[in-house]
């Protein structure tokens, strides 16, 4: 196995074992931290599909995460306040709803966004995210800017999300599934076209591929996965607000991917780990932790090519 493969295994093993250990040894906060990390890693993995492999730099990915969270929060809200039935709190309803809503949103915005290239694409994805942001802010029913408290987590027969260990377990398994899924996709025939289109869209078109459609499909898959991550995040925080969709959140997801190493399997996870652990550790020492954090980001960009995963072996994993 390659170095990169070992690293991937090691990271995933540590991520699976350490947090429950923390919990069992009386440090529940670190389990929470890990749950958040793992959920954001799923979002980063989904972003990597289009950003890393597809070359489509979406600056609005947090919108999908936010929408996914609202797909959990809104039915729960109606269940509590306007007497919707118990079905509204069912995970079997909420999670597919999150995925579906995001897929539809991705499809509609993708149709327009994918007409543009490069920085124009970056900005138009951000524009749509901002529109959703302000839309949610303006809906007073769902808390507007104040956000929405989720009183009841998604209900499942076989798992209790109110139990932090079980919630972590679900997130962790989801992360592994999403990594495997993305890996399968990028190595499939579809994925080859997607990657080819990143490298040379003109050539792909003359070979006979309708690049636009392939990109659109990838965009929808990625959005739907991010929506799923959002649904988990809503369940984790039990509080959702438009803030989750702010462009700076999209930026953070992007940074996780680039920091860890775009178009690698482990990169986004590594990026999420480093991002969140650094944030936690540095902010422990000083409220001015942005200073060392910013310096570190700059150092990584200036001195390490291809992100952290780039330090271990070449691009092909």
């Amino acid at each position, binding site marked *: 196995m390659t170095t990169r493969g070992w690293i991937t295994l090691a990271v995933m093993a540590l991520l699976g074992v350490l947090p429950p250990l923390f919990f069992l040894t009386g440090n529940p906060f670190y389990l929470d931290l890990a749950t958040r990390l793992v959920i954001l890693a799923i979002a980063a993995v989904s972003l990597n599909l289009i950003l890393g492999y597809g070359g489509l730099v979406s600056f609005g990915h947090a919108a999908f995460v936010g929408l996914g969270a609202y797909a959990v929060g809104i039915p729960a809200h109606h269940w509590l306040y306007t007497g919707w039935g118990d079905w509204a709190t069912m995970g079997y309803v909420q999670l597919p709803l999150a995925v579906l809503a995001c897929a539809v949103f991705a499809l509609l915005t993708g149709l327009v966004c994918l007409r543009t290239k490069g920085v124009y694409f970056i900005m138009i994805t951000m524009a749509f995210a901002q529109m959703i942001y302000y839309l949610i*802010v303006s809906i007073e029913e769902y808390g507007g800017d104040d956000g929405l*408290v989720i009183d009841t987590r998604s209900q499942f027969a076989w798992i209790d999300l109110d139990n932090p260990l079980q919630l972590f377990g679900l997130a962790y398994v989801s992360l592994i599934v999403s990594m495997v899924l993305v890996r399968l996709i990028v190595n499939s025939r579809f994925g080859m076209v997607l990657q080819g289109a990143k490298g040379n869209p003109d050539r792909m078109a003359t070979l006979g591929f309708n690049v636009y459609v392939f990109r659109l499909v990838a965009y929808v898959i990625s959005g739907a996965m991010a929506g799923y991550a959002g649904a988990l995040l809503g369940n984790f925080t039990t509080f959702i*607000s438009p803030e989750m969709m702010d462009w700076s959140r999209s930026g953070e997801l992007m940074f996780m991917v680039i920091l860890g190493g775009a178009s690698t399997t482990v990169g986004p996870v590594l990026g999420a780990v480093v991002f969140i652990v650094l944030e936690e550790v540095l902010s422990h020492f000083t409220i001015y932790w942005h200073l060392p954090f910013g310096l570190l980001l700059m150092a990584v960009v200036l001195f390490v090519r291809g992100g952290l995963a780039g330090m271990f072996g070449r691009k092909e994993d």
Partner: protein
Amino acid sequence: EPVKIGFVTTLTTGAAVIGTDMQNAVNLAMEHLGGKAGDTELEVIFGDDQFAPEAGKQVTDKLVKQDDVDFVAGYIWSHVLLASRKSVLDADKILISANAGPSQMAGKLCDKNFFSTSWQNDQTPMAMGEVLNRQGVKSLYLMAPNYAAGKDMTAGVERTFTGEIVGKDLTKWGADAQLDFSAELAKAKASGADGLFVFYPGAAGGAFVKQYQQAGLKETLPLYSVFTVDAISLPKLQSAGFTDVIGSKVTQEWDPSLDNAANKKFVTDFKAKFGHYPSYYGAQSYDAIMLIASAVEKVGGDMSDKDALRAALKEADFESVRGDFTFGNNNLPVQNFYLREVVEDADGVWTTKVVETVYENHVDSFAAECDMK
């Protein structure tokens, strides 16, 4: 084994100016207490919410789960408080708001473990509406940021103001909040209203007042504000010479000029230590610590008996800087609201002084929705 208090406020971003004021007041309170409540040692751990609900919730989680605090106090912003609420209450810890007063938490979401040393959002603007009626203002133009507290504030003044509302602007808020109000001020002027009511907390307040003066509206469109002109914006306005703010009227439950022993000590020592007047944010934070200390002392430092602790808190048996008050059924203060005016003090420093009492022992409008007795 000291009793631990987590104190969540904003220590970074531009809004840190408020957080710093609160932090200073908390430290002063601890100094006045000698770090002790009776024989029990108190320890305060500060947490930074970074002006964002998610970060606020995270730091609250950490205080509750990692530092295992007994109380979590602070919270400037409604949305941060709402986000963090569940983390504290689910762990059966005591939550005390030193500023934010969202209507939900006064009403439907009230909780036996939640107390406030501030107010419910609507109360202060309601008092202002009352003032406007008394001053014979017939028509009013409203401006506030477009977020929940902003809407609460305009709703509050509309609830009591009996004249005509001739226009209302809710401006963009959030990370890239609108701070240039030229268009809205022009509209307000053109509306021909008798007065202008605004709510712009933090840095936006200073920005608003400046533009109000630059537009030369003092004579034609008198300013009535809540949470906009305060001890945080006044020093900056004074240093930049925005004299039009002198004489402007605001309502509040507290004022540095309130005549009671606790307040005198607080204001004098605060000024001596930090070189400027405390703000109501500071006063409320000071009270929050004093409230906690009083309760801890009553139960003799025993944090295990929550019922006794809650009962002790509910008595509000301490010397509040706003004077005596009681807790309502929803654990929010039942207290007076005053009309204050911006004046220059004997040393030439701009501050506020009480003009009259608008409400006595006012109960907020959401207390009825709370099913605690």
